[in-house]
């Protein structure tokens, strides 16, 4: 069936995201929440996430700019929030970067913080693109089976 093709594509795409370690189980949980009232619930959430977290990213960036010395406490607090957000949508890699960043904050490693943050931003942006593509395809495909767990 034609439909199955796009569906399989979507499924494959999703699977790939999981395989790459970009998403985790939480993403599945979100998908399971989709219902008639919110058929594109996951997309809505992800959109909300990117919108809200962007200001956190800016704050962190700003804080990192105010060096000499870096305010690790503040950075840690901001990152904690960001991590919470990211984990709630299942952004696995982003979350890992957050943890690493916080560790550097804990040890007062400014260099480590900066580097990690750069990496984090990359992952963050990359995930966004991939998810956008995913959602787009999903929408085209029509209502997908929900919560199709990746193998």
């Amino acid at each position: 069936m034609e439909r199955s093709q796009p569906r399989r594509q979507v499924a494959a795409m999703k699977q790939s995201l999981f395989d790459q370690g970009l998403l985790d189980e939480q993403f599945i949980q979100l998908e399971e929440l989709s219902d008639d009232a919110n058929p594109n619930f996951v997309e809505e959430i992800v959109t909300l996430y990117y919108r809200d977290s962007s200001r956190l990213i800016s704050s962190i960036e700003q804080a990192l700019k105010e060096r000499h010395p870096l305010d690790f406490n503040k950075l840690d607090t901001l990152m904690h929030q960001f991590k919470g957000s990211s984990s709630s949508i299942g952004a696995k890699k982003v979350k890992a970067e957050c943890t690493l960043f916080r560790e550097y904050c804990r040890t007062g490693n400014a260099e480590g913080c900066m580097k990690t943050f750069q990496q984090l931003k990359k992952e963050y942006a990359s995930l966004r693109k991939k998810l956008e593509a995913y959602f787009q395809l999903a929408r085209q495909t029509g209502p997908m089976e929900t919560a199709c767990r990746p193998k």
Partner: protein
Amino acid sequence: MNLSHCKGSTMSTPSSSGSHLRSTGDAVSDQFPAGLRVLVVDDDPTCLMILEKMLKACLYEVTKCKRAEVALSLLRENKNGFDIVISDVHMPDMDGFKLLEHIGLEMDLPVIMMSADDGKHVVMKGVTHGACDYLIKPVRIEALKNIWQHVVRKRKTGWRDPEQSGSIDEGDRQQKASDDADYSSSANEGKCSKKRRDEEEDADERDDSSTLKKPRVVWSVELHQQFMAAVNQLGIDKAVPKKILELMNVPGLTRENVASHLQKYRLYLRRLSGVSQQQNNLNNPFMNPDPTFGSTSINGIDLQALSVAGQLPAQSLAKLQAAGLGRSTAKPVMSMPLVEQRNLFSFESPRLRFGEGQMQHLNTNKPMNLLHGIPTNMEPKQLANLHQSAQSLGNLNMRVNASVAQRSPLLMQMGQSQPRGQIVGENGSHVNQLPTSLLQPSVPNRISNGVIRNGIASTSNINPAYNQVPQSSSFMNFPMNQTNEMSARSFPLGSNPGISNITTKGMLQEEVTSGIKGSSGFVPSYDIFNELQPQKSNDWDLRNAGLTYDATQHSNHVQGNIDVSVSPSVLVHPGFSSMQQTGQNRDTTSSMGKAVFSMGEGMDQGNLQSISQPQNPLHIDHSVRVKSERVPDASSQTNFFPEQYGQEDLMSALLKQEGIGLAENEFDFDGYSLDNIPV
């Protein structure tokens, strides 16, 4: 659908609060847990949305909130509007744990904390602050599916309304209701509604055996006083729910009810201890010197002074002295409490008792705990005495006050027993009679007040004596609005303006009604005291021998006891020679005495003691003396808890938790300024 869990929603009672959910009341059980009303608080919009969706998927009724303050106001407006709260730990406007505390005190709802932080110490914090669960983010829907268990658990353990207590509560409620009329504070309103709701709940509960809907146990002032008495008797450290239950001997009350109440009390004490420590220190000097209370000196002096003043009838004076001194000599009555802030509670009870016996009791070696808050003494009988004496007032007040110091709930109770306004007025006659000595002993108590403040809600104490004094008022300072009785003096404690002055604690008035969760209710007796002082000096002589705080309260109020629970009553009375006027004060003070004591503030023992005192012109010296001593405490305690303030209000406020508007005050016990509580 709203679980008609005992929120009284179904009740036809007009209670304003939470009536929105009024349903048939029983309907809920069928669909439970569906329809569970959840309030979720998180500053992260992503998480908030996800949680909302998940909770809806569980068929719960969800309300989401980005800010803790908004959540609190939602909860306050709608007392019975929610069954459970889920809150994030890290929030910009208020710490999640703080919110947790507030909710626990005011509304007594189960609260679940959540955070991306799974560090052990954070989770431990959740536990110590009373969270019923802790979820790690990202939260899974499975974790949310079972949160209803916390609601059921809470209902089962804490809310069951004992038959007896139900009836008692009802009685109290009614009384309160009438008192409420006096109070204009919103707290009253809360109380009233609460009461009504409780009443309904009681009725409902009896019929409905559903565990889900178990009506909450209403910890009325009386009940709380009994609780306090039991706790005091056992000693706060040894107070186990089972024994407390036995001592209380309230039919229908379960061990679980007591256990949860005890837990709250402990939290309350803990909070106070921070504050009271300060006072304790202060008190200690007072008290410590004499185990018996130092009061001997105080009491003795006061008494003597009083007697000299001629205000106190020799007899009463003797009594007071005996009581106080006996106690004081016995001292330990009070001193003890100081040491343990927590014990305050215990103190109060003893104190309360004192109040009753007014002097007589005092003699009983029960150290004038009134002030001291010597918890141990206040055995139930004392209370009984107190009650009786309360009539005679003067003494009672003192005692009560002392005991009152305990948590506001106690106060509330006290308030109950004492017709709030009575303090001065009613017993006025008594009060005057009450040997200032009563108050005096209370002085030592005062110290304990400080201690008591912590929680000495010796309910028992407070009321008995208070009866005269607007118990309700003094008790908790809360309802000082009631001013009930306090009016006598310049300090209309009851609604004592004095107390309001004191407002430092703010509690008193507000707290009281709100159920002073924390000591907050108690208006810093300090202020009151100060205020009273000037005037009191005159009155004091008589009255307060013990009540230093009286001064502040003088009018009835009880003592702004800072310690909310502290037997503000004590404060109120004793010193309040002015009490006569306030009549209430006395009683309240007695009861409040405890509170008063804790109030440390002005109560200066002299005041406290005087609570019951017969307005004798005890001369303020007494109180003055006390004051000086107390002052140190007072500062911390400033809550003189004008018992008179509608103790009931206070109590109810405290008990009611729900309505506790005190929120800020909650803990405003002595040390805690209500202001502290950022809400």
